[in-house]
């Protein structure tokens, strides 16, 4: 446990002493700020229109602002996740510091979990920046906080799964760019897999769509904590970290 924290602390540190964390946070804040502004503007216009139309329809902030925005974060996250995970192992391998970790009295799995945890925590900080926007909704409106909390939990789980896969990919190469590009490809693929369900209802299409990380987020964005979807993300995390530990092991036998 302690070792995991030692590694996680070191990783977080290196995110924040380099421009990486600040760059990601700034970009995310700007992009999400735009989404939020857009979404609230649309909501305002729509509610105004429904009032002018004479038949005022009760519009929920949760339904029309928070829910689509949470899904948007999930999609934007796909682009940020490779940039968070790409350096985790690739950089250690390039600098040779992996030898230090591998010859210290610390287990491989502690190194892996520590690094993954740091990546998830950086993503968590990213999410905090989006929470600032939502805080305004609570100031001027009256949304329900529970679906929002579950939505965030879902985002963390989703990112956890993708980051675990990113960690694995990063452990396969010395080159950060390769790790980043490959992770980005995988993230993108896991997103668009869902599209096949739009025109095809055969079993293969259902299986493909099942593997899309986005479909499993639907329940979370509605504020429903569905175990089936939570388990999907948890098994993704487990698989990613397990593959990483295999890859670290093979490094010893091959190098």
């Amino acid at each position, binding site marked *: 446990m302690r070792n995991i924290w*030692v590694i996680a602390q070191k990783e977080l*540190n290196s995110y924040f002493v*380099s421009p990486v964390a600040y760059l990601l946070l700034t970009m995310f804040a700007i992009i999400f700020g735009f989404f939020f502004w857009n979404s609230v503007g649309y909501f305002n216009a729509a509610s105004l229109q429904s009032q002018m139309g004479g038949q005022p329809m009760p519009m929920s902030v949760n339904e029309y602002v928070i829910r689509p925005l949470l899904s948007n974060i999930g999609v934007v996250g796909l682009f940020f996740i490779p940039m968070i995970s790409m350096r985790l192992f690739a950089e250690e391998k390039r600098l*040779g510091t992996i030898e*230090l970790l*591998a010859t210290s009295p610390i287990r491989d799995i502690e190194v892996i979990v520590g690094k993954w945890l740091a990546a998830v925590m950086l993503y968590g900080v990213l999410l905090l920046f989006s929470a600032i926007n939502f805080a305004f909704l609570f100031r001027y409106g009256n949304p329900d906080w529970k679906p929002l909390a579950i939505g965030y939990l879902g985002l963390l789980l989703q990112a956890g799964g993708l980051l675990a896969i990113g960690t694995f990919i990063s452990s396969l190469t010395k080159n950060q760019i390769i790790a980043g590009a490959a992770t980005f490809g995988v993230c993108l693929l896991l997103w668009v897999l869902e599209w096949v369900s739009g025109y095809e209802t055969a079993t293969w299409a259902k299986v493909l769509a099942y593997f899309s990380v986005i479909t499993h987020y639907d329940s979370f964005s509605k504020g429903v904590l569905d175990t089936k979807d939570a388990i999907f993300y948890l098994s993704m995390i487990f698989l990613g970290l397990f593959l990483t530990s295999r890859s670290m092991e093979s490094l010893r036998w091959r190098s």
Partner: protein
Amino acid sequence: MITVQGLTKRYARTLAVDHISFEVKKGQIVGFLGPNGAGKTTTMRILTCFLPPSEGTATVAGFDVLEQPMEVKRRIGYLPETPPVYHEMEVQEYLTFVGKLKGMSGATLAARVTEVAERCAVADVRAKLIGKLSKGYRQRVGLAQAIIHNPDVLILDEPTAGLDPKQINETRDLIKSLAGDHTIILSTHILPEVEQTCEQVLIINKGKLVATDSVHNLQARARGAESVLLEVEGRNGAVESQIVQHRLETVNGVSRVVLKDSRENRSVFEVESLKDRFIRGDLARAIVESGWNLNELRASAMSLEEVFLQLTGGEKVEEPEPVEAVAQGESQ
């Protein structure tokens, strides 16, 4: 402290280490010598539990590298060929991090960081980013990292590679000062380094251990004959190198004269003596008395280099030593 038995490491196609066996006693400095690609790094990586052996066993302080890697890792300090430093960390921060990795914490760790920083002469750059340090400093930070948890065994892979001569000397002194408290294995392909720092030498070539001996014995083996380089200049114009060579060959105790280089009025010879004969004085006298100028006369690098070349199949192979016998007899 370290026992290696029939250690073998195979990669896909190559045999990197081929059944080597040796033993290192507590408190010794052992030089691990061999040409590039001889299998030094591989052996060290096996000892540090970075790589598993394909065959054979290695134990450090009584713990097997395969069976109890955690115990071995706790007792080993390792400096790989490139110091494993994070460029975005400050020296102090880095040493603290490594200390934590090795299981230290709190005040003990803080005190130890200060201590090793001073010992390795990096105390003055403690607050600097490692990425901004020179190669020499980085190497010393690497060394500080290796000794932070006061390990029983230190394994240093080419600790002086890439340093300037002054830094090399400093690093050697530092390593020597660490002996006694620690058992040290250092690898190198530089011979004088072994002569200056180590008590014991393991010579490895193409994955095989070709000699284990004390530095003293190896030097004695090499010192049997003397080899001298000299440059002769004709006093007025050209010099007849043939004549000079004949004259040199007649000097008492000379076994062989080789003409190395010849330009208009000067020639360079390499002269070898018979066993246990000192010929430099006689050579100088012979040249001067024959009316030539003696521009230069120096002992050519004979020391360990020759033994090394012989053992690693450089040019002439004379009598290959029975490895095991020497290894057992001289490891005290």
